[in-house]
């Protein structure tokens, strides 16, 4: 610029400067591709790692966590929150670095030209920082609320969609839509709060840049006129100042990103920091092979304070067949579920082969137990894969064998794709009975020392039940078997039957003993028999 103002004073031509600028631009471009690619790739890689960690965390958490944390909320954390964090790490970091470099470089050059003018030019910036601090607190707050409301919205949508059949059956479409509308309205409201803040920040940052230019124009212009400053210096100065405008505006945007990222990181940390109550013992007891001796010693348990099981003591020898009956809510499912340590249980209450289950390695414990839950969860994979889930690396022959034991092979033969049939989400394309038998086959394939059947045949007709139980009798061998059922016929052949009521064992003994006792079991039996008698005629 000096060269332009006083031609001839400088040996270089404008063309030389032009070429210099172009050369610098190309070099800059190369650096940019490199830095941008590196940082943004890093952002993606970090996102990948966090997602891996999150998923690994989920796999390690126990069921109380999932019962409390809503599915929609977790999914929202994996997608929306993780995106915010990635943006913070990639773009946010890139732009912070970029902004700092540009600021430092520009200010150094400006100070070299004129320290006083530099001071004037950066005068508006403290004001800016003040506003930024004010606004960022509020952005943080509203961002958090908006994220929470979006999560609530997601949960509601997830639940409504999963319940589509129930919603339809009772024609609750309108109320569900109304509730959704309300949630969406609340999200809209907090989003607008955010929008307002964002709307302030960006023009404000741009204005600050303009204000700097204004001060330089007025103060600097006066100095040029009074001859204290050269025109070249003045033009160069405005040029450097112009360089700051864009990063300043971006700064406003980064601010937003930082706040959102921080909120989201907090939400991710809440998952990452969650610790399962059911944890592996640091020094687990050495296990060779679990024989299947189960002992309850004064077991008391409740999901949320209220005791559901009260002072249960029972010893099940290896190879014993135990039947459990009792009214709804008496704690039958809870009792058998606790053996798997899906829920935390206090020390000194449940023992397997004489060792407290809390001391046993989790893996060994669960490997030894085949558990067929009341509600059969199948994955949206093929039927074959679902059965083979029972044991890693199971062969086709083994899968077929397990399916035969669970009396599923007849149904499979009827499917055009056989074991390759896709069962749909949660097994929707199978009937309730088919699902239950698939879950049984899956557990049988595991070849466990302890087999727990939690009312597994509720959706199966009497004949199939008969067939399955008959087939299983040969499979039981010297396995310990626990069967929960309402139908006494299913408990035929049990070595010991316990009757639960309100969380306590009220009766126990063999079928004959309990009948002789003339208590609750006998009453149930009488009733079931009586109906049979009546219906015989």
């Amino acid at each position: 610029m000096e060269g332009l103002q006083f031609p001839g004073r400088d040996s270089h031509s404008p063309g030389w400067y032009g070429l210099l600028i172009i050369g610098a631009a190309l070099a800059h471009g190369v650096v940019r591709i490199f830095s941008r690619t590196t940082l943004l790739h890093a952002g993606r890689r970090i996102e990948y790692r966090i997602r891996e960690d999150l998923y690994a965390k989920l796999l390690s958490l126990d069921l109380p966590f999932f019962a409390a944390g809503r599915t929609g909320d977790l999914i929202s954390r994996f997608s929306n929150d993780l995106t915010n964090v990635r943006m913070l790490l990639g773009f946010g970091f890139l732009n912070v670095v970029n902004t700092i470099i540009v600021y430092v470089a520009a200010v150094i050059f400006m100070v070299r030209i004129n320290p006083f003018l530099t001071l004037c030019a950066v005068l508006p910036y403290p004001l800016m920082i003040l506003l930024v601090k004010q606004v960022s607190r509020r952005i943080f707050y509203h961002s958090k609320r908006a994220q929470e409301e979006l999560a609530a919205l997601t949960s509601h949508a997830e639940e409504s969609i999963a319940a589509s059949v129930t919603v339809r059956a009772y024609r609750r479409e309108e109320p569900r839509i109304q509730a959704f509308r309300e949630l969406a309205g609340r999200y809209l409201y907090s989003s607008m709060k955010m929008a307002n803040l964002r709307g302030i920040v960006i023009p404000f940052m741009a204005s600050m840049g303009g204000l700097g230019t204004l001060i330089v124009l007025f103060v600097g212009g006066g100095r040029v006129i009074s001859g204290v400053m050269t025109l070249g210096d003045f033009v160069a100065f405005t040029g450097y100042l112009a360089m700051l405008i864009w990063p300043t505006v971006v700064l406003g945007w980064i601010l937003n990103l930082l706040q959102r990222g921080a909120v989201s990181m907090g939400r991710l940390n809440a998952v990452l920091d969650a610790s399962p109550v059911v944890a592996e013992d640091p020094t687990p007891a050495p296990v060779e092979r679990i024989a299947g001796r189960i002992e309850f010693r004064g077991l008391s348990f409740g999901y949320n304070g209220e005791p559901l099981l009260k002072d249960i003591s029972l010893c099940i020898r290896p190879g014993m067949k135990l039947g459990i009956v009792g009214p709804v809510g008496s704690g039958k499912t809870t009792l058998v579920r606790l053996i798997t340590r899906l829920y935390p249980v206090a020390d000194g209450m449940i023992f397997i082969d004489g060792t407290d289950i809390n001391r046993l390695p989790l893996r060994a414990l669960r490997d030894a137990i085949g558990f067929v839950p009341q509600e059969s969860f199948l994955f949206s994979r093929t039927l074959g894969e679902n059965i083979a889930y029972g044991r890693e690396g199971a062969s086709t022959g083994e899968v077929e064998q397990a399916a035969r034991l669970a009396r599923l092979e007849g149904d499979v033969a009827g499917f055009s794709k056989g074991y390759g049939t896709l069962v749909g989400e949660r097994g929707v394309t199978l009937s309730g009975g088919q699902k239950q038998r698939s879950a049984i086959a899956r557990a049988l394939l595991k070849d466990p020392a302890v087999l727990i059947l939690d009312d597994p045949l509720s959706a199966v007709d009497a004949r199939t039940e008969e067939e399955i139980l008959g087939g299983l009798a040969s499979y039981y061998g010297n396995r310990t078997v626990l069967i929960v059922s309402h139908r006494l016929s299913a408990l035929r052949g049990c070595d010991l039957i316990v009757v639960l009521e309100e969380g306590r064992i009220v009766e126990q003994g063999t079928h004959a003993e309990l009948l002789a006792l003339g208590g609750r079991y006998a009453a149930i039996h009488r009733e079931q028999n009586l109906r049979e008698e009546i219906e015989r005629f």
Partner: protein
Amino acid sequence: MHFGGIYEDEIVGKAYDKRLLGRFVRYLRPYRRLVVLSLLLLPLIAAAKLAQPWLLKLAIDNHIVSGRMEGLPFLSLSYFALIIGDGLLTYLEIYLLQYLGQRVMFDLRVDLFSHIHRLSASFFDRTPTGGLVTRVTSDVEVLGEMFTAGIISIVGDVLVLAGIVGIMLWMNLKLSLVTFTVLPLLLYIVFTFRTRMRTSFREVRARLSNLNSFLAESIGGMAVVQLFNRQAAEQREFTRLNAAYRDANLPVITWDAALFAAVEALSSVAVGLIVWYGGGEIIRGTLTFGALVAFIQYIEKFFAPIRDLSAKYSIMQGAMAALERIFGLLDVEKDSDLPGFRSLAGIESPLMGGGRGEGEPSPIQTIEFRDVWFAYNGDDYVLKAFNLTIRRGEKLALVGETGGGKTTVTRLLSRFYEVSKGSILIDGRDIREIPLDELRGRIGVVLQEPFLFTGSIRYNISLGDEAAGQRVERAAEMVGADRFIRNLPNGFDEEVRERGSNLSVGERQLISFARAVAFDPEILVLDEATSSVDTASERLIQEGLTGLLAGRTSLVVAHRLSTVRDADRIVVIHKGEKAEEGSHEELMARQGLYYRLYQLQFRD
């Protein structure tokens, strides 16, 4: 300058984009005044931006170079006013755009959600829940980005670009033309990269969808994963999907970085050209200093919108992909659009007794399944040539082996699924001609797998329905659910967790059963409703049922023959066909399938 959600989306064809956008614009119609206002603001903002360098040029040429101090304060003041004006207008514009975006998102969301609730049940068999949730949440969210950074601000950018080109040409034709020599190269680069990024985007989208579906299922089946010790295998699969998603993203980043850098470099080249050529002009005296400074500032402003063009482009493409999925879902036929209904839409079925407000509709006399065939997929027929007539006040029981098609009969009757062949007639009228709402209002179904919502037990029985709400306690007593409910710390107000996980399966069934009773339907359909209930509870239910079913038409599916013994008629379904029909005594006398099922259950 919104960079949110940049790399995430798939790209769709251009012609298609137009159609999607056209459809989307319809959502703007209720807010057309705001749209017009935001469009009117754009030229003002552009003018405020474009005038700033021009004032700078005036200040330099007329005052600073010539040393005239007077007038400079006025120019500075004008400059200040422009900055403030620019800031205020931009704020207003951003706020308006966000408001518009949020409103449209709200409308779209509610539309989507309502639409999903009117889709047929079979749709949910093939579509994972996770995917639908994504449509309602993230996909709509992407559209919000489009508003803050997309369509309307692009109009503003175009205005600014056109204005800059105009002013530069007017200020100095030759210098402008020299500067603009970089433009063809710029256009070439932008378009080349566009095509490259298009393919990559598509892959990214598909990979993300896979990842999220897998995750949703994993969370649902966590107990199974842990029980079978399959954490390692699940983690492996997750890692594979996660890595595939990451790797799909990397090329997009590289392309985008290259585009960004190219635009940056070209902008610097343009400044270089101005200095090189403009410098010569100044020396020759054909260009003023102020003009050169203004030129450089204009070029800076010219490249600024192009610089985040790639970001905007990505957002637009993401929005297009989202729109495609959103409209794709909205295009899925609703239940009420199913054939048979459409032709009679708006026509009140006389047999169904007209509208709600006009007193009680005449009671249903007969329900008839006439030669009904049904398959969930392809030719795997679950029901074959099925015939059945239920008369008013009759208690009919369906029995048979598992997988025989009993549940399917109840699903078809409440029209969750459409019959493949044949028809179901109510009082001689095809159910496809009856408004769904009315059909389901009169037929109450207790489902095999009870679904419980988060909310109180009371809510779960009444589902927020006023009439049902008044019958909550009585219904609970009737099915014997009050016993366990009253034992809960908060009784009927006890909170139910997601999917009812804090209740046992039997308790859930009782609540589901109480729900059906509270709704007091004209026809009651029970589908294996009490399979996980103990004998004592079952007896309570039986007693309640006797009263409930008196004079009421009902269809009961059950495995326990004792529960169906006092049915007026029993139908045995075997392999999708009706095998036997008659009263308990008749069927026992026949010594056929029912007899054998019976023997099996009541042996000993």
